[in-house]
């Protein structure tokens, strides 16, 4: 007996009919499924990976932090009272971090000094959690022990490569001697130390003391890490931190807990993963045109079936329900495939990330990420399918009797348009609710909506122009013109797909161009060549003379520098302070602070006035954005902890800082009287240009290392290269995400071309009968696609440039550049790709023989 399977019979009516229809004719959903699969997989993957990272940070928090709690004392030594308090509460590990220069021993004339990031530890207590891995494997006590005149040292392999050194070689840091005992394989608390500009070197605290670098005013960071007894809970850790603050309220330390190891890193991670999620969402939305085309195609193909059902007694709402269930079943299938793919992405990416940035990331099954991705997939499917599905509601059944159920074009009834708008609203709300940074999400949604609406407008204008312009005299042009103008024209999809693709490509090219242009600028003499850190106050005059002798024509600047931490704003402790996003970074950890009698270069006073040279009051000049974020205005008070002392100063003026000049600049510049008598070191910059600037850099670095071994010379070019490398990696991720959006946009274009085949076939067959050759038809199609693609590219160049301008000038504060050659190549490439795709799509039309087709038309 041929009854349908029992399970199908028991299903609700609409589901039963939908399943029957899909099983009978499953074609036409390829693009629909592909578009949703790509978007859902990308969102699930990106979210899964960022959650894996967050979980890894949480799980390994105490290892990364180096303890349950970490107390940052800045430049100052722990007091005995503080040390006693902490020792009584658990195991204590003290470390020091600082920047210095090193050279291979014995020193040769041509041996280049290298900047290093020193971590000085106590081998008896370091690390409290995890293990220091070295090659060859050595215990810290062995690796760092003193033998003869030399202390043991563990060095980042990058330093060994840079100095062409090997294990067993000797290094000089200041007047002290070290021997490289091992290469650093893994540093458990690397992330908590922040990203440095030089390779890491681990020495004992006794070794660091021997270098003579620990002078009053040296820029160092002292951290004390505490391991609480009996595997404490996160709450117990928080209580311990609160108790420490209560017991020693004037300590001025910055306490980090194991569940918030690096707020800045976590925030950047959140931001970046959110950005990737939004780009992945763009992939889903760009594929929306493909979804809509597929559903439109479904309704077209099933018009007769739906009309018959209505003739057999199905209410229009039932017919809509059947069509909706078909779409939802296909959506569910696409979501399942997308989730299966997306769930595997973190497993692959985690391995790569573990190797690249030594993060404790372990991927596992992540239901919340998958649920969010599935929900996005469902919403996008609904947004783009409800309107075309609504056309199933008003299929003219009477046309069946006339034998032309395909006749007439039903419009979407209002309720379905309202439902589609509702789904769109739900999508926007979901994006906003799941976004950590609502401002970014809002701006992104605004840009995407504006881009889609404008592109649709461009397409509409192209269609209108094709209708309004006088009919072309050339028949090929006339065919192109009528193809653009007619209902069901390719114009909207082609313009949106090509437009989205080119907009993304142009924006990416321009942002990358700006970053690279900035890097190239570092060799042009506009920005300093070196920062010299830790020039002791006593040596400062000598050092200035030394620089002038070395580079007589160079621009040399000097500023005193100390490390300080903001502890209170307008009398409110920062722990209790809610600040704007522009100010969050300034409150995290230590900031460089300085004092000056005159306004710094590269800054403009925008409110208030600079102080007199002999000002006796404690005044501060604040960077305007940070001040706005903290709600500070002229006359308000701010308290900083410098060298363990809390100092309160009044805001005298606000400065707008051009950070990108890389000239010496500080968030807070105090009046000289504020720090009268306090120890400090000087920070110098030197700038010069010329063809031989690189060679002069090397010469200056060597001479500095020889004369002033304690001074750390940071070469701006190298620092920028580090930044450039990070930027390149981020750009790669952004490009990968954007390529998904481009893939779905092209899929949508392909589906639109396929959907338009029938009308095109009719014209092509008739024209062939009248004598048109294939070449003639190709020329007509090229004209049609080229006109539309050119309109899309023109708009996309403007939109992409506008988006890039916002990112480059607004977010990155870099100068905007417009590399015409890159843009021309991008645009021509996209134009060519659109033409190729269009012609490939119409090839079947061109190759059809007119005879058989005419009979079926």
């Amino acid at each position, binding site marked *: *007996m*041929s*009854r*349908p399977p029992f399970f199908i*019979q028991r299903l609700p*009516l609409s589901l*039963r*009919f939908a399943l*029957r*229809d*899909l*099983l*009978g*004719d499953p074609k036409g959903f390829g693009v629909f499924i592909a578009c949703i699969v790509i978007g859902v997989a990308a969102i699930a993957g990106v979210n899964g990976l960022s959650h894996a990272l967050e979980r890894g940070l949480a799980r390994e928090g105490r290892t990364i932090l180096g303890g349950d709690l970490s107390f940052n004392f800045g430049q100052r030594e722990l007091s005995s009272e503080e040390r006693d308090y902490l020792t009584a509460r658990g195991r204590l590990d003290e470390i020091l971090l600082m920047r210095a220069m090193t050279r291979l021993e014995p020193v040769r004339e041509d041996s280049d000094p290298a900047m290093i990031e020193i971590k000085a530890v106590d081998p008896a207590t370091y690390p409290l959690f995890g293990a220091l891995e070295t090659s060859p494997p050595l215990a810290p006590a062995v690796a760092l022990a003193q033998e003869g005149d030399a202390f043991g040292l563990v060095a980042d392999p990058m330093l060994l490569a840079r100095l062409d050194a090997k294990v067993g070689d000797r290094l000089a840091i200041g007047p002290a001697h070290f021997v490289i005992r091992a290469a650093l394989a893994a540093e458990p608390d690397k992330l908590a130390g922040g990203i440095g500009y030089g390779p890491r070197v681990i020495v004992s605290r006794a070794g660091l003391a021997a270098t003579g670098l620990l002078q009053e005013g040296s820029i160092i960071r002292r951290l004390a890490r505490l391991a609480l007894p009996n595997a404490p809970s996160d709450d117990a850790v928080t209580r311990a931190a609160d108790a420490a603050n209560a017991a020693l309220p004037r300590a001025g330390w910055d306490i980090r807990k194991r569940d918030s190891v690096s707020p800045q890193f976590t925030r950047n991670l959140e931001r970046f993963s959110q950005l990737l999620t939004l780009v992945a969402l763009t992939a889903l939305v760009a594929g929306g045109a493909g979804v809509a085309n597929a559903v439109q195609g479904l309704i077209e193909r099933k018009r*007769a*079936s739906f*009309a*018959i*059902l*209505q*003739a*057999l*007694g*199905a*209410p*229009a*709402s*039932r017919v809509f329900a059947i069509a909706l269930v078909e779409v939802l079943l296909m959506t569910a299938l696409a979501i399942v495939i997308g989730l299966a793919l997306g769930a595997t992405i973190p497993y692959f990416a985690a391995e790569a990330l573990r190797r690249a940035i030594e993060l404790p990331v372990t991927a596992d099954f992540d239901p919340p990420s998958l649920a969010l991705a599935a929900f996005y997939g469902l919403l996008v499917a609904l947004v783009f399918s409800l309107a075309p599905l609504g056309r199933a509601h008003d299929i003219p*059944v*009477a046309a*069946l*009797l*006339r*034998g032309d*159920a395909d006749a007439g074009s039903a419009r979407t009834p209002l309720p379905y348009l309202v439902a589609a708008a509702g789904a769109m609203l739900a999508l926007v709300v979901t994006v906003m609710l799941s976004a950590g940074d609502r401002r970014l999400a809002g701006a992104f949604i605004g840009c995407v909506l504006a881009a889609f609406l404008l592109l649709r407008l461009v397409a509409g204008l192209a269609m209108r122009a094709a209708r309004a312009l006088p009919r072309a005299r050339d028949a090929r042009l006339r065919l192109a013109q009528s193809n653009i103008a007619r209902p069901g024209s390719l114009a909207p999809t082609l313009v949106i797909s090509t437009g989205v693709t080119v907009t993304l490509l142009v924006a990416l090219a321009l942002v990358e161009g700006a970053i690279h242009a900035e890097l190239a600028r570092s060799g042009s003499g506009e920005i300093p060549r070196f920062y010299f850190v830790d020039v002791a106050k006593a040596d400062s005059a000598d050092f200035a003379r030394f620089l002038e002798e070395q580079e007589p024509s160079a621009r040399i600047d000097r500023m005193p520098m100390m490390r300080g931490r903001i502890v209170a704003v307008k009398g409110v402790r920062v722990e209790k302070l809610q600040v704007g996003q522009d100010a969050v970074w300034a409150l995290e950890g230590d900031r460089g602070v300085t004092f000056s009698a005159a306004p710094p270069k590269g800054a403009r006073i925008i409110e208030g006035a600079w102080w007199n040279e002999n000002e006796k009051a404690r005044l501060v000049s604040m960077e305007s954005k940070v001040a706005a974020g903290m709600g500070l205005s002229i006359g308000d008070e701010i308290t900083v902890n410098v060298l363990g002392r809390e100092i309160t100063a009044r805001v005298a003026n606000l400065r707008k800082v051009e950070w990108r000049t890389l000239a010496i600049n500080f968030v807070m510049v105090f009046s000289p009287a504020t720090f009268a008598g306090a120890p400090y070191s000087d920070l110098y910059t030197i700038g010069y240009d010329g063809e031989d600037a690189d060679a002069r850099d090397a010469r200056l670095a060597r001479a500095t290392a020889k004369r002033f071994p304690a001074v750390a010379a940071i070469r701006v070019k190298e620092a920028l290269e580090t930044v450039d490398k990070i930027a390149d990696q981020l750009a790669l991720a952004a490009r990968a995400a954007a390529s998904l959006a481009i893939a779905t946009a092209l899929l949508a274009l392909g589906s639109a071309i396929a959907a338009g085949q029938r009308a095109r076939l009719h014209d092509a067959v008739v024209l062939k009968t009248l004598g048109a050759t294939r070449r003639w038809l190709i020329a007509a199609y090229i004209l049609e696609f080229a006109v539309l693609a050119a309109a899309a590219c023109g708009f996309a160049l403007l939109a992409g440039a506008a988006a890039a301008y916002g990112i480059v000038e607004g977010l990155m504060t870099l100068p905007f550049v417009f590399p015409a050659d890159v843009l021309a190549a991008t645009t021509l490439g996209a134009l060519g790709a659109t033409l190729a795709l269009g012609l490939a799509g119409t090839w079947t039309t061109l190759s059809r023989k007119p005879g058989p087709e005419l009979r079926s038309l």
Partner: protein
Amino acid sequence: MGIIGPSGSGKSTALMTIAGLERPDRGAVRIDGRDITRMDEDALARFRGANIGIVFQSFQLIPTMTALENVAAPLELAGRSDAFARAAEELRAMGLGQRLSHLPRQLSGGEQQRVALARALAPDPLILLADEPTGNLDSETGAAIIELIFEQKARRNATLALVTHDPTLAARCDRRISLRSGRLAREPERAS
């Protein structure tokens, strides 16, 4: 009732109006005492499902459904629990007992029209509307279909409204209506 007339005379429009698929500009359509022109779309659809069976010239079977599923469809839409048993019975009555699981494209024109007839009759409608039911068939198959239609109509005591170009076919009806330019061309004739 046979409805005849040249092309464009309004035969199909008359049939559609009776089926409630088109609304008349004026007047009313009463079936079994109920004015169907006052019903909304959904009520009309349900009324049509229960009371009117339609046979189309071009069969209008749902291509993705088997013969059995096509016939069961109106019964399922009406919420009948015995939809498939009843559909199978109808198909057997049409001589299609061996064709239940075939898709429309696997059936000949005559078989397709018999499936369509079984589908129209399955809910036991008061009225059977047939629009040129033999228009797409050869004369022999067409004749067989016409026999089936008249036989089933008689057996079920249903009202048949048959649109046709063929005066001999119309002559077999109890009553004939001739249309011209949307109007009755002459008084209805009653067969003896």
